[in-house]
């Protein structure tokens, strides 16, 4: 049996959302609770169906739906995450809340990236960027551009991806969101890795920049991905010792995250031509954790 506070809180909210249905506060707290779970203990909750059947006119519904979609995203259920985000977007549009429309569009663009629906995702990231530009929200613009850069990269539009990533990085100081800065540097590193052998040094510079930020701001997740990206680069260059060293360093930043351990073992097995190890790593990788771990929204 799992002994932790979230079980009690889930029950408390389940009871009070039943007996205190008119209280907006209870539902707002539900949204916060779901956010806590999304980041620290991704698991589905009994509250999910209750949130979905709230009337669309309920003031807390869009916020709760958004949080719930995040939770689905965290457990790897992109389809339900997308379904809820589409519903959330509709509610925010009806309420005329541009800022929330932009945030939801940005969320949708990320889910679509993980569903390999790049064209749709690009459209949504651009829409989010345009709204943030209109609202003069620089940070929102930077976040949308970073999403756009990843989508464009995966859609093989390397030039446009680089432009978006550079524009994003220039829009905000690192300390405002070090994780976002890491993601921008990582995508720039990947873009340079994909371009030409001559650009490998530039790629390394960006990966090292991401690692430097991760180290300075103590971001284990970004640390892991920074080393993972470096390992991928060195594997592609045939520098197996360097690659191996980075996989080992990535492993030291996995904490208790089985998914990350699995990714590291799998990558090492693939790079070293060890099919057994790769398979073992893949088995460890609960697919559910895939996108959350490749970078938060």
């Amino acid at each position, binding site marked *: *049996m799992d*002994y*932790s*506070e*979230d*079980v*009690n*809180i889930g*029950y*408390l909210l389940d*009871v*009070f959302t039943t*007996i*205190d249905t008119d209280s907006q*506060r209870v539902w*707002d*707290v539900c949204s*916060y*609770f779901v*956010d*806590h*779970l*999304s*980041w*620290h*203990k991704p698991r589905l909750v009994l509250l999910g169906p209750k949130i979905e059947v709230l009337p669309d006119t309920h003031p807390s519904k869009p916020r709760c739906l958004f949080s719930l979609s995040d939770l689905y995203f965290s457990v790897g259920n992109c389809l339900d995450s997308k379904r809820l985000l589409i519903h959330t977007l509709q509610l925010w549009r009806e309420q005329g809340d541009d800022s929330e429309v932009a945030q939801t569009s940005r969320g949708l663009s990320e889910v679509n990236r993980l569903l390999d629906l790049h064209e749709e995702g690009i459209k949504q990231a651009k829409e989010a960027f345009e709204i943030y530009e209109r609202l003069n929200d620089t940070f929102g613009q930077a976040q949308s551009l970073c999403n756009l850069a990843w989508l464009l990269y995966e859609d093989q539009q390397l030039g446009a991806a680089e432009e978006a990533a550079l524009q994003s990085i220039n829009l905000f100081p690192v300390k405002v*969101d*070090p*994780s976002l800065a890491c993601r921008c540097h990582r995508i720039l590193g990947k873009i340079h890795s994909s371009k030409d052998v001559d650009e490998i040094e530039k790629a390394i510079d960006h990966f090292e920049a991401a690692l430097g930020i991760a180290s300075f*701001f103590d*971001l284990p*997740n970004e640390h892991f991905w920074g080393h993972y990206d470096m390992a991928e680069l060195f594997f592609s260059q045939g520098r197996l010792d360097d690659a191996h060293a980075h996989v080992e360093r990535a492993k030291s930043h996995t904490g208790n995250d089985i998914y990350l351990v699995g990714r590291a073992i799998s990558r090492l097995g693939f790079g070293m031509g060890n099919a057994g190890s790769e398979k073992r790593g893949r088995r460890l990788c609960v697919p559910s954790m895939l996108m959350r771990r490749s970078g*938060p929204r």
Partner: protein
Amino acid sequence: MDRLTKEWERQRTDALHTHHNKSLTATIELSLASPMFQELGPDARELLGAIAFFPQGVCEDKVEWLFPSVFDGTNIFNAFCTLFLTYQSNGFVTMLAPLRDHLRPKDPKLSPILCTTKECYFCRLSVGVYPGKPGYEEARWITQRT
């Protein structure tokens, strides 16, 4: 056995009532009427109700935080264990299912202590969670025992 299970599902602790007052309910109430329990003060009964309410019981290390209005809460919790009304399990103070069934507040909104506990949880939960931002690491408390 089937019949007994069905009866338990239907009546819960009421199923244990007998004509001669040798019921579980009577036993529990007898314990609660004992001088040792009475000495714990007027909040003790409601405090037991709060423990009964939560499926995991109450985290031992959070007694003072969750019950700020109760004087000397930790000692009262210890006394519950001494009286075998509760027991400790994995960092939580909890109780056996029949006791929970009997002591859990019938209407949680009418229990001031439980409502205070609810507010404690609600206040602590009402913070944004985003990696790298203040409050992100602190939010891990929901997954921890202590």
